[in-house]
């Protein structure tokens, strides 16, 4: 790999900045060798590593060092790319959008500053993972549950800032955040919400504070470096009953979605509920090769044999109810009365399927128990690489079916199995479709990236926008949000120019570029 410098940055400027950073954090925590930097890559990425290669990395362990690093970077115009744990794999992981950036690696800032059982919250630093927080709570016997993303190694802050979701009633991670501390590009430090009132005891209790609510500006963006965040934690309920309902026909998707919607709106099913397609479900049990080794999408005959053999549905709906048995019994009866109207549907709890590894890991997630089992999806083909396509739609049967057919057709056209699931939130539906490829195979990688681009265009044309993406597609997807001549992105740019005039913070994140790098300047 060759050395890369970002535009307009000289080697001298960079060397001077790095030397000053070594004085701040110690030479052991500034990384610049090829060997060091090879670890700041996303091994599941659809892109060549050289496209998103870091030039160096610096790893502070305290806020004062973060501030000093920001001032140094600002003085020398060094672009920084901030990561929490850098485990957002297949979205870029620890790699920067702008090649040649210096990674600001916050993994060493991993303190759990407070867990408050009385009010149900934690205050954490960026390097705290879901596993860390879960272990901390268990070791101390707090009667609190976390809501974790599917892979346990993710950062609580990082996942929240990327608009990630989970599977308990606290599944809207940003919705459940409360209060941030943010370091700005010039090193200034801000506490949002009630944290701006010295001595406030409500920083993690009341989101809105006084005046404009700015927390959102620091999510999926590059306006500041979040160094602390409050997250609400659910009091341990008196009971929890996760369940699975299997459905036998593809056509059932319409009615499943229509029947689930009122149960979600009324919070009979209060958690992040999911409807998985047969292939996504099967991946938790086995790899594709067990049922089909040929090229192209798995034929219907193999699909049906797999479904029958594994005892799963063409669609599989996961939800949970929470509370004492007297309440959950009634909630479950409402769920059954509603969803079991669909012919061929069957209802299961964990006791009914003790050997079912999919139900087991989903039940853990619905109880806020972190695990890594969802990564079985990466093993479906075994190539390691994948891109997640995840357009947002209303939770209607019509939209679910339209998206399913649209996306499956494209995936089949490109020789892929349709690997998908629908995650139904309160009033939204995320359709996750996983495009898998062999990372070492450049042709497969390029084809997967091409397929993704086509699906983004298809979805946008139908009014469905993406909610999150890999570095390589941030510009393309930002450009789909172009109502009124890109007015929202022009607003992002105006704010960016005001709070980070030298453009040192994560240039290009979500298609937001500093002035010096906009358009043809890149």
């Amino acid at each position, binding site marked *: 790999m060759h050395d890369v410098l970002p535009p307009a940055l000289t080697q001298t400027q960079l060397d001077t900045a790095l030397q000053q950073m070594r004085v701040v954090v110690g030479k052991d*925590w500034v*990384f610049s060798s090829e060997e*060091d930097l*090879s*670890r*700041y*890559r*996303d*091994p*599941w990425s659809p892109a060549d590593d050289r496209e998103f290669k870091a030039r160096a990395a610096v*790893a502070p362990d305290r806020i004062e060092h973060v501030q000093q690093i920001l001032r140094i970077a600002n003085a020398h115009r060094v672009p920084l790319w901030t990561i929490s*744990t*850098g*485990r957002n*794999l297949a979205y870029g*992981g*620890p790699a920067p959008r702008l090649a040649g950036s210096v990674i600001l*690696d916050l*993994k*060493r800032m991993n303190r759990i500053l407070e867990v408050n059982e009385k009010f149900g919250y934690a205050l954490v630093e960026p*390097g705290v993972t879901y*596993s860390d927080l879960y*272990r901390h709570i268990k070791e101390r016997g707090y009667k609190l549950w976390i809501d974790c993303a599917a892979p*346990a*190694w993710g950062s609580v802050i990082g996942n929240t800032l990327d608009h990630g979701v989970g599977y308990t009633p606290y599944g809207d991670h940003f919705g459940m955040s409360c209060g941030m501390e943010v370091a700005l590009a010039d090193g200034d430090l801000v506490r949002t919400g009630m944290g701006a009132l010295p001595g406030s005891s409500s920083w993690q209790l009341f989101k809105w504070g006084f005046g404009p609510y700015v927390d959102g500006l620091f999510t999926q963006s590059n306006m500041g470096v979040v160094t602390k965040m409050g997250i609400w934690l659910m009091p341990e309920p008196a009971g929890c009953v996760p369940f699975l309902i299997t459905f036998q026909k593809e056509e059932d998707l319409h009615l499943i979605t229509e029947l689930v919607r009122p149960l979600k709106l009324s919070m009979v099913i209060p958690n992040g509920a999911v409807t998985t397609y047969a292939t996504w479900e099967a991946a938790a*049990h086995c*790899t594709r*090769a067990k049922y089909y080794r040929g090229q192209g999408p798995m034929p219907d005959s193999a699909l049906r044999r797999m479904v029958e053999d594994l005892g799963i549905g063409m669609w599989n709906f996961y939800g949970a109810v929470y509370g004492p048995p007297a309440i959950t019994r009634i909630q479950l009866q409402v769920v059954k009365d509603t969803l079991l109207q669909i012919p061929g549907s069957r209802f299961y709890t964990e006791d009914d399927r003790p050997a079912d*590894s999919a139900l*087991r*890991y989903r039940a853990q997630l619905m109880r806020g128990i*972190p*695990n*890594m*089992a969802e*990564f*079985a999806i*990466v*093993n479906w083909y*075994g190539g*390691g690489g994948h891109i997640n396509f995840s357009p947002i739609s209303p939770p209607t049967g019509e939209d679910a079916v339209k998206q399913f057919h649209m996306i499956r057709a494209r995936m089949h056209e490109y020789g892929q199995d349709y690997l998908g699931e629908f995650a139904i939130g309160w009033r939204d539906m995320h359709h996750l479709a996983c495009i898998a490829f062999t*990372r*070492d195979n450049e042709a497969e990688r390029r084809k997967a990236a091409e397929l993704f681009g086509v699906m983004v265009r298809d979805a946008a044309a139908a009014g469905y926008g993406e909610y999150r993406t890999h570095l390589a597609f941030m510009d393309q997807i930002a450009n789909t949000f172009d109502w009124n001549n890109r007015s929202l992105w022009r607003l992002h740019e105006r704010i960016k120019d005001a709070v980070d005039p030298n453009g040192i913070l994560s240039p290009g994140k979500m298609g937001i570029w500093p002035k010096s790098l906009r358009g043809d300047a890149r």
Partner: protein
Amino acid sequence: MRPPTLLIAICWVNAFAAEPTGAEVFEQFCSACHASGPHHPGTQLLAATRGNSRSVLTDRTDLTAEFVRSVVRNGLRTMPPFRPTELSNAQIDAVAKYLSKQ
């Protein structure tokens, strides 16, 4: 104000706190993907690519410490690298020793 003797005792305990063992490092950082049984994607992938007999890392007798160190620090295909900010050299040495059974 804490009595000085208590403060000294706390410092003494911290100064002599044991480094985690290889088994502890494995449990905390590796087992979610590499423990035996279903539910663990690393074990599942090794079973598919290397066969069942080589799928459970703690059962293997062919792993060298050098190989484990290299794979954990640098990654290998689907397995991502673990940076020094995530796992120290000491932690990787401990788990390498544990898995290579040296």
